[in-house]
């Protein structure tokens, strides 16, 4: 229906009115201006002594001329790449045309949009611009529009989502931002405590404190110590303070456009996941959080790199959020999960106890991990294929694994089910995913 109307619209107003090509924000050339400078700096760092010698040999005029050439070249390159980048929103597609020498045209089908992110790195925040990133399945390279003005970016996001949702093309750009109702707001205090209670944070810190001195005693070589110590320090920073900065002020909201996730202290990110795009939800429960009843919720969206839904929240809150993003889904309580039979201990001692499975009428839920428990939920409608595997030792013990593949390239495995039950589960799961798919929402969720 909308196709017909759209064609009529294009006939009615050919060319410029319907497909209006736009350019990015004029700040954009600066984004690449640092590249030549970085090359020079990198070269200098690579060979410090030689650089110093050559610098002292150069006359001041030469030096200035060199700097001018580098700056002008960078500015010219930045300007040209900005000048030749256009984008346009049509009824069904977002078209990006770019490239000075190697031309590239990308047409992104809006009804296949998996997620839209508006991100603002610190420098971009100062300049008042934002980056729009689009996730589509199958593209290994993310298409992004960098940079756009702040208001323009959110207006464009609203328009893209409205068109993806199936609003009439004439009204799509007037729909505006959909109203958001807040579901979760993670307090900084809670986030800090949760990071303190995470094992990896401490592991990285301890390793950073212990390994370099040991290396120093072993080798007495400053370079070796630096070469191992600095990456480790970086890792420790990323897993503690870096995560705090990234996950600061985490907000999850719900709007007709889908799920809104806003976070960041320095770099701001606003992610939007349209309805029905979530393939898997994982409830992660580190050992030290269990006493407080906190969990972390992760999600998989096909073709998207966004992995976290809620960095930390009390279990009830997390379950309420999951119920909103996967309508009709209830997270099975730990007691509902069925453990493998005791003979599975022969296949995997100790750890077998961490496994568990529950199948409700909406999700396939499998848990693994003994200390850090991870419960993966796959809605039946998102199952791509089902598989039963059984190794020789497992067959001897009469158990088998059931694997469920989802569209986000993740496989959820229910390990060590009794063989008979596994075979039944296999066919029942195929049946369930087939029938529940019939009632799934359409790609254009407002149409």
């Amino acid at each position: 229906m909308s196709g017909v109307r759209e064609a009529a619209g294009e006939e009615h107003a050919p060319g410029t009115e319907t497909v209006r090509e736009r350019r990015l924000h004029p700040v954009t050339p600066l984004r690449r201006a640092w590249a030549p400078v970085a090359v020079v700096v990198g070269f200098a760092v690579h060979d410090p002594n030689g650089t110093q010698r050559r610098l002292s040999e150069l006359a001041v005029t030469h030096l200035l001329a060199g700097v001018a050439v580098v700056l002008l070249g960078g500015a010219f390159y930045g300007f040209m790449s900005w000048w030749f980048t256009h984008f346009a929103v049509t009824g069904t597609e977002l078209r990006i045309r770019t490239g000075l020498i190697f031309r590239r045209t990308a047409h992104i089908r809006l009804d296949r949009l998996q997620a839209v992110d508006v991100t603002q790195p610190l420098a971009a925040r100062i300049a008042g611009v934002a980056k729009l990133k689009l996730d589509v399945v199958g593209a290994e390279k993310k298409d992004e529009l960098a940079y756009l003005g702040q208001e323009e970016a959110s207006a464009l996001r609203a328009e893209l989502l409205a068109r993806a949702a199936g609003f009439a093309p004439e009204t799509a750009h007037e729909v505006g931002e959909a109203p958001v109702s807040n579901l979760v707001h993670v307090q900084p205090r809670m986030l800090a405590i949760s990071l303190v209670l995470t094992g990896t944070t401490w592991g990285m810190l301890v390793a950073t404190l212990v390994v370099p001195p040991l290396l120093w005693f072993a080798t007495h070589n400053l370079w070796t110590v630096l070469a191992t110590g600095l990456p480790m320090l970086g890792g420790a920073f990323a897993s503690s303070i870096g995560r705090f900065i990234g996950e600061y002020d985490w907000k999850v909201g719900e709007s007709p456009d889908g799920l809104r996730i806003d976070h960041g202290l320095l770099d701001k990110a606003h992610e939007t996941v349209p309805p029905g795009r979530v393939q898997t939800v994982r409830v992660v429960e580190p050992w030290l959080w269990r006493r407080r009843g906190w969990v972390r919720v992760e999600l998989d969206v096909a073709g998207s790199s966004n992995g976290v839904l809620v960095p930390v929240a009390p279990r009830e809150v997390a379950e309420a959020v999951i119920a909103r993003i996967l309508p009709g889904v209830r997270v099975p309580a730990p007691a509902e999960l069925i453990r493998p039979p005791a003979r599975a201990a022969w296949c995997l001692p100790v750890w077998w106890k961490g496994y568990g499975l529950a199948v409700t009428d909406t999700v396939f839920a499998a848990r693994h991990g003994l200390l850090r428990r991870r419960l993966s939920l796959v809605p039946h409608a998102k199952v791509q294929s089902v598989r039963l595997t059984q190794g020789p030792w497992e067959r001897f013990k009469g158990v088998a694994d059931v694997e469920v593949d989802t569209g986000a390239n993740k496989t959820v495995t229910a390990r060590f089910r009794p063989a008979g039950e596994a075979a039944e589960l296999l066919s029942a799961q195929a049946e369930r995913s087939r029938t529940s798919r019939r009632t799934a929402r359409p790609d254009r969720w407002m149409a």
Partner: protein
Amino acid sequence: METGTAQPARPEESGAEPVWTGLPRGLLRMRRLLLVVWLVPIAAAVGVLLWIFAGPGWSAFAALPLAVVAWGWPMLGRNWRSWRYAERADDLLISRGVLWREETIVPYGRMQLVEVTSGPVERHFGLASVQLHTAAAATDARIPGLIPEEAERLRDRLTELGEARSAGL
């Protein structure tokens, strides 16, 4: 113990009993021939070279590739017998493996692409393999070594059913 002893010939499917199809005998012939074609010359080369450079006693090592042939011959047979597939009303079943058994169910509606491939050796033996792709890369639904007419029939039927039941992501 209940599922699949060495002969996984009897499926214990509930409801509609799937009609299993095995793979053509040509595939087994091809695999066995490849085994012999590769390993017998290796055995000969090892034997001759060791005889010349290290002495007659060392050439006994040539028995090693021959032992592999003797062991691989029945193994290929078992593996070939374990492969089978069944087309049901709404999904495709593929079952395979002797020690590491695997049974995959791919609903027709999830198929993104059906691929028929055939290399030069396969073509010589009149074989072609069918590979199904879903949106999940982990889906390993491959049927090796079908006769080309069957492969094409399967491909056409699968695409037809896939279109009828299309469900996407």
